[in-house]
C-alpha cells in the first residue's frame, strides 16, 4: 500500500496528501543494467538489427524499413495533447531483457518473476484464466495456456514465435492490414520497431469459457514498448481477451506504441478488456482496431487511468451485415495527465449496430478529452449507432472536453448522440453525509457509482482493481 500523510489544516479540516500513492505498488523497479541496449534514436540499421535478432522472414524486414520511411515522412497530428516531452532521438526504442521466453514460471528470472508476482499475474492464472502471457519490456517472457484450451485447437503464443510456425502465412496475410503504417506517425513507428506481443487463433465454432490474458510491463527507463497483438476469432467462435499494462515511474519519458489487430469472423464474438495503468511518465500512443464480419460482435471494455499523455481510440469496422460493436470506456485524468481517448466506428454494411458509452473524470488539473468518430458509409442502410458520453469535473482546475464527430452518408440510418458534463451534485453529497458518511467517502462513492457501468463489465478481479484505483485517486481530493 501507498504511504499517505494526514495533516490537519488551520481550519481543522483533515487533509490527506497522496504522493502518487495509487501507483506505488506498480512503482518498484529493478535496475536495467543487465539488459542489452541499442543506441538511442532510430535508423535503418537499428531496424535491421531488430529484425536480424528476431530471425524474421524477409517480408517483415521489408515491412519494417518501409514503415520507417513513412515514419520519417509524416507529421505528428496537430490536434491532440502535446508530445513535445517525447524526444524521439533519446528514446531507446528497443530493449531486450536478459531472458528468453519461458512457459514454466519457475524458470523465469527472479527479478522479472517477482515483478509479475507482485502484480498478481500467476495467481490470476490459477484462479480464473485460461491462459496468460507476460511481456517484459520488448519481449514476451512468459506464455502459457491451460491444456483444455490447447486441446480445443486454440493457439495462444508469442507472435514472433508464431511467425515461424503453422500460422505464418495467416499472419503475413493479416499483419498491419487493419492498421497500415500510413495511418499515423506512431503506427509507422510501430511498423518499424514492433517487438513482442501475442498471437491468438480461435478455430471455427470454438468457444472459450475463460478469458486469456496478456500483461505488459515496461520496466526499463526511457524505453519504448511496441508489442503487436493479433487475434483471429474464426466464424462462430467466442473469446474474451484481457490486457493489463503497468510500468514503474521514471523521470524521463517512456513510450508505448503498441498495435492490436482483431479479426472477428461471422457470428463470432470477441470481448477485449483493458485496464491501462501506465505510470505518469508514459506516452501511450496505442492503436487498436477490429474488423467484424457478418453478425460478428466486438465488445470493447476500456479503462484508462495511467499515462502522462494518452491517445487511444479503439476502432470497430463493421464490415459484414448485422455486425455489432459496443464500446464501454472510462478515463480518469489526474494531475499532470492529458488523456485523449474515445473510439471510432465505421458502419460499412447493412443493418450493423454500434453502441458507445463512455465516462470521463478529470481532477486536479488533469485533462480528459472524449474524441470519437462515427462514419456511416453509403452501404450502411438500416444501421444504427448510439453514443452516450458523460463527463464529471471534480474541480475547476481540470478540463473535460467532448469532441464527437459523425459523418453520415446513408439515408436509412439512426444515429443518436448525447453527452452531458457536470460535477458531483452537492445535494447527493449532502444526502450521503446526512447519513453519517464522510465527504471524501461520499464523493468516492458517487464517483464509483458513476464508473459502475464500466466496472460491472469487468471480471471481478479487475473491477476491484479499478475501484481501488478510483478510491486512491479520490483520496486527498477534498480540501
Amino acid at each position, binding site marked *: 500500500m501507498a504511504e499517505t500523510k494526514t495533516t490537519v489544516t488551520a481550519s481543522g479540516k483533515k487533509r490527506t496528501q497522496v504522493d502518487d500513492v495509487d501507483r506505488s505498488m506498480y512503482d518498484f523497479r529493478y535496475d536495467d543494467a543487465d539488459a542489452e541496449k541499442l543506441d538511442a534514436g532510430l535508423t535503418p540499421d537499428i531496424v535491421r538489427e531488430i529484425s536480424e535478432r528476431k530471425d524474421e522472414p524477409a517480408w517483415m524486414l521489408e515491412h519494417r524499413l518501409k514503415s520507417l520511411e513513412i515514419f520519417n515522412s509524416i507529421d505528428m497530428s496537430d490536434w491532440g495533447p502535446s508530445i513535445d516531452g517525447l524526444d524521439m532521438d533519446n528514446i531507446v526504442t528497443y530493449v531486450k531483457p536478459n531472458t528468453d521466453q519461458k512457459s514454466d514460471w519457475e524458470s523465469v528470472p527472479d527479478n522479472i518473476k517477482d515483478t509479475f508476482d507482485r502484480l498478481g499475474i500467476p495467481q490470476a492464472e490459477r484462479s480464473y484464466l485460461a491462459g496468460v502471457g507476460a511481456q517484459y519490456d520488448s519481449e514476451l517472457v512468459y506464455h502459457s495456456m491451460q491444456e483444455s484450451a490447447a486441446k480445443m485447437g486454440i493457439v495462444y503464443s508469442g507472435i514472433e514465435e508464431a511467425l515461424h510456425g503453422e500460422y505464418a502465412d495467416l499472419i503475413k496475410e493479416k499483419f498491419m492490414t487493419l492498421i497500415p503504417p500510413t495511418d499515423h506517425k506512431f503506427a509507422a513507428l510501430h511498423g518499424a520497431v514492433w517487438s513482442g506481443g501475442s498471437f491468438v487463433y480461435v478455430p471455427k465454432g470454438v468457444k472459450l469459457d475463460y478469458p486469456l490474458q496478456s500483461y505488459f510491463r515496461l520496466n526499463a527507463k526511457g524505453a519504448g514498448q511496441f508489442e503487436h497483438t493479433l487475434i483471429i476469432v474464426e466464424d462462430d467462435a467466442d473469446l474474451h481477451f484481457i490486457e493489463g499494462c503497468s510500468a514503474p515511474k521514471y523521470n524521463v519519458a517512456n513510450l508505448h506504441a503498441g498495435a492490436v489487430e482483431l479479426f472477428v469472423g461471422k457470428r463470432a464474438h470477441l470481448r477485449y478488456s483493458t485496464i491501462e495503468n501506465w505510470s505518469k511518465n508514459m506516452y501511450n500512443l496505442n492503436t487498436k482496431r477490429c474488423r467484424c464480419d457478418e453478425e460478428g460482435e466486438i465488445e470493447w471494455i476500456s479503462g484508462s487511468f495511467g499515462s502522462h499523455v494518452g491517445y487511444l481510440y479503439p476502432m470497430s469496422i463493421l464490415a459484414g451485415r448485422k455486425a455489432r460493436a459496443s464500446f464501454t470506456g472510462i478515463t480518469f485524468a489526474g494531475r*499532470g495527465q492529458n488523456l485523449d481517448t474515445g473510439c471510432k466506428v465505421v458502419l460499412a454494411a447493412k443493418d450493423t449496430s454500434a453502441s458507445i458509452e463512455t465516462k470521463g473524470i478529470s481532477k486536479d488539473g488533469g485533462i480528459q478529452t472524449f474524441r470519437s468518430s462515427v462514419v456511416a458509409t*453509403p452501404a450502411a442502410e438500416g444501421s444504427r449507432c448510439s453514443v452516450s458520453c458523460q463527463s464529471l469535473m471534480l474541480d475547476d*482546475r481540470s478540463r473535460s472536453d467532448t469532441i464527437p464527430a459523425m459523418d453520415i452518408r446513408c439515408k*436509412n440510418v439512426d444515429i443518436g*448522440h448525447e*453527452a452531458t458534463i457536470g460535477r458531483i451534485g452537492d445535494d447527493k453529497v449532502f444526502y450521503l453525509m446526512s447519513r453519517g458518511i464522510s465527504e471524501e467517502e461520499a464523493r468516492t462513492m458517487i464517483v464509483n457509482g458513476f464508473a459502475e457501468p464500466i466496472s460491472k463489465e469487468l471480471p471481478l478481479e479487475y473491477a476491484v482493481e479499478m475501484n481501488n484505483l478510483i478510491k486512491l485517486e479520490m483520496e486527498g481530493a477534498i480540501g
Partner: protein
Amino acid sequence: METTHVTIERASAMPAATWHFLNMNDTQIEMPEGLSIAPAVQVSEPWAARGAADEFENALADAQVEWEKSHPAPTAEELAEREAYVAAEVDATYGGTAQSAYQIAADAIEESRSLAVAFEHGTGDEAAAYLRYAAGDRIVVAVKEGQSVDAQVVVSAVPGAVSAAAVDVIADANSAVNLSLVVDAPTAPGQSGASAGITGTTVRVFADEGARVEIDRTQAVDGDFTDIDDMGLFTAENAQVAVRQTVLGAAASFTGLAGDLRGDSSRIDVDTRYLGHSDQKRDFNYSLRHHGAKTKCNLQANGVLAGTSSKTLRGTIDLIRGCKGAEGSENETVLLVDEGVHNKTVPVILCNEDDVAGNHGATIGHIREEQLFYLASRGLSQQAAESMFASAIVEQAAIDATTDAARESVVRYGERLNPGFADLFEE
C-alpha cells in the same frame, strides 16, 4: 472594380480540431474572380438609431474598463502562487500537463484579459473582413438606453457581383432591438442562376446590460449564389440575444456565429432551420464562449437534407473557468430523405469549470418509427412523408417570418420550388 479569385482557407474553423481525415475542422470559401462589388442593400431603421462608425469599438472598450473593475488582474502574490503550482506540477508530473495546441491557444485568450481579443467572428476573421470590404460603410444601429427599435436590412443578390452588408448593433442598457435580415433574389424565375454571385452579411452585436436583441435572418437566394452569414455577439450582464437563422437557398451557404457570453446571467439562443436539396452545400459553425456566471446558451438546429446535398455543422460550447452555474446545451435534428445526402455533425463541449451543466444531443437519420406509422395511418407513404418534411421547412419559414420582406422572399422561393405554393399565403 472587379474582384480577384480568393480562397478563404480556414473559414468557420472550430476551436478544438479533430482528425483531419474527417475533413470537418473548417471549410474553404471560394470567391470567384471577376465579380463586381455591388452591394444592393436596403435599410429601414429610424434615423434616431443611426450610430457613429466606431460605436461598436467604443462600446467594447467601455465594457473592457467595466469588466476589469469586477475582474481585477491577479496580484503578484496570486501569480507567484500559480507559478509555484505549475512548477510543482512540472516536477511532480513529468513536464506538466501536455496541453494541445488548442488548449494553449484557449489559455492565451483568457490570459490576454482583452474583450477585443476574445471577440470572434463565426466564419472567421478573414471571411468577415472580405464581407466588410465588399459592403462598404457599416450600417450602425445604436439604440439608447431603455429604447426599442425595429430595423430591417434587405440584401439583394446581384448576378455577377458581391452584394453584402456589414451591420453593427449596439444595444444600450435595457434597450430592445429587432433586426430582420433578408437575403433575397428578387430576379425573375429563369433569369436567376445564370450567373454566380455572392451575398453576405457580417453582423456585430454589442448587447449591454439587460438589453434584448432579436435577430432574424432569412436567406432565400437561389441559383448559383454563395451566401455567407457571419455574426459575432457580445453580451453584458443580463443581456439576451436570440438569433433565428433560416437557410433555404444558395448553392453554397456558410453560416457562422460566435458569441462571448461575458456578463453574468446573460443568454444567447440560436434557432437554425435549413433545407438542403439538389447539390446544395450547407456549412454551419457555432462557437459560444461562456465567461460570465450563470450564463446560458441554447443551440437548436433542425434541417432536412434531400437530393445530393451535403451539410457540416460544428457547434462548440466552451465553458470557461469562472462561469459558475453556466448552462450550455445544443441539439440537432437532421432528417435525411434521399440516398446520396451527406451529413457531418460535430457537437463539441469544452469545459474547464466544474460548476456547470453542459449537454448536447443529435439525432440523425430517418423519420422516427412512431411518426412514420402515424403518417402512414393517414395515407402517407415514407416517400410522401419525407417530401412533406422538406416542404414543411419552407412553409414554416413563411409562417414564422417576422417581416413582410422575409415572408415575400420565402414565398417567392417556395413558389419556385413548388408552383402553387404562393396560394397558401395569399391574404
